[in-house]
């Protein structure tokens, strides 16, 4: 069984190398618009089909329906706006129908945008609808408030398909789909993470593997908060897991360069759609998925899937897991009858403190070899 991509089309707006060379020349004559590295990620993800069926930045019709109803204009479920913001002066200079060059801060042309729409929006309304709050303490809301006043919509054509850093871990949906097919996987469970693996993660991954043919470990790579694991450390640790712990023919590690919006339930839908596009039939959503502070209820990111149309991915709604001295293994509240005193949840703060001090994390929380690997790497946390 090969799961259809979202919207039944796998977008590919990556120019072939010979066309990219020509377009690079064309782009030199176009109006340049500098985009930051987070927008570069979105541009590349759109072009590579990660956000299928999006083929560019949203036009007003799609944007407004996504904000209010979590649907694209054609009715396809879509939870988060993907937009390109510009200030009023730039918006006034750009005409609908114009092609503009999207360039990195160093001037490198990334893509061409075929401008189909320009429009304004009401940031408070967007924040309230998408994030459920208008408080700018929420990082996603702050992103909305920090945006310029105008949005440009239109399809993109990707010139720069470079995949650094971590090229060797960066697979497109076309690639993962072929890979899963070659491996003979009919069902695949996607696992999202922003951390090095501990036992509770492993427990959840094993649950996924028990009910599917393959495990797709898909860490989100990119901008992180101080104290988070560095991307390289996460990849090293998971490379060990897929090479040494899980059956080698049943697990795949590949990264997802993506800006976290911390939109909780809406973002959980986005994450599931992205994994569907990679070819996953199942996706793990834990408690507090993609949330921040206490803006969302513990189970909101799981419950939202019961309120939307079936997006074609089976959601594995799992509880937080912990080590239990009574069970002598990792368990969840669904599988363990013991009191809290016997349970040790994997505390990110404790793990970080121990590893920073060069001390191994207790073996019941993190595999000793993972602890040692991280200690040996040295500088593993974002400063």
């Amino acid at each position, binding site marked *: 069984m090969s799961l259809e991509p979202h919207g039944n089309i796998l*977008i590919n707006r990556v120019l072939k190398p010979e066309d990219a060379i020509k377009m690079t020349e064309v782009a030199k004559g176009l109006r340049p618009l500098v985009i930051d590295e987070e927008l570069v990620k979105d541009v590349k993800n759109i072009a590579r089909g990660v956000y299928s069926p999006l083929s560019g930045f949203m036009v007003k019709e799609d944007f407004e329906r996504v904000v209010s109803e979590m649907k694209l204009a054609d009715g396809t479920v879509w939870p988060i706006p993907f937009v390109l913001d510009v200030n009023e002066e730039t918006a006034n200079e750009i005409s609908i129908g114009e092609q503009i060059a999207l360039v990195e801060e160093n001037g490198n042309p990334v893509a061409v945008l075929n401008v*189909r729409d320009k429009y304004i929006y009401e940031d408070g309304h967007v924040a309230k609808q998408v994030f459920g709050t208008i408080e700018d303490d929420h990082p996603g809301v702050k992103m909305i408030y920090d945006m310029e006043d105008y949005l440009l919509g239109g399809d993109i054509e990707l010139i720069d398909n470079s995949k650094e850093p971590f090229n060797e871990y960066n697979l497109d949906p076309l690639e993962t789909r*072929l890979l899963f097919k070659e491996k003979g996987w009919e069902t695949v469970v996607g696992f999202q993470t922003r951390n090095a693996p501990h036992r509770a993660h492993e427990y959840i991954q094993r649950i996924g593997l028990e009910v599917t043919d393959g495990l797709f470990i898909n860490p989100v790579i990119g901008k992180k908060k101080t104290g988070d694991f560095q991307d390289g450390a996460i990849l090293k640790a998971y490379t060990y897991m897929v090479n040494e712990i899980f059956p080698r023919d049943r697990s795949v590690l590949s990264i997802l360069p993506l800006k976290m919006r911390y939109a909780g339930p809406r973002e959980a839908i986005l994450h599931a759609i992205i994994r569907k596009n990679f070819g996953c039939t199942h996706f793990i959503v834990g408690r507090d998925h993609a949330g921040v502070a206490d803006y969302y209820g513990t189970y909101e990111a799981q419950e939202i899937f019961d309120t939307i149309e079936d997006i074609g991915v089976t959601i594995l709604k799992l509880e937080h897991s912990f080590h239990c001295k009574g069970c002598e293994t990792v368990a969840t509240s669904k599988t363990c009858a013991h009191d809290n005193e016997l349970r040790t949840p994997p505390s990110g703060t404790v793990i970080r403190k121990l590893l920073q001090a060069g001390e191994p994390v207790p073996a019941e929380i993190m595999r000793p070899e993972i602890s040692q690997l991280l200690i040996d790497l040295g500088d593993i946390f974002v400063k």
Partner: protein
Amino acid sequence: MAQVQLSDELYKHLEQFANESDEFSTVDEYVAYILQQVVDKKKSTQQAEGQQDGTYSKDDEDKIRERLKNLGYLD
């Protein structure tokens, strides 16, 4: 910017529609918008036909398989 020629009659119709719209301040913007829709639709159709919902040509598939082998994902 390229220029195209339109009949006077067609131009007048377009001018009237553009004037009645809140979104377009000139006929040029209106025409560019319409043509962009046509181009996008054509591209989208071509892409759907070419990709057949996530499949790819034999040549593309071979290149992908080669990359997956080079990266160690496939034997």
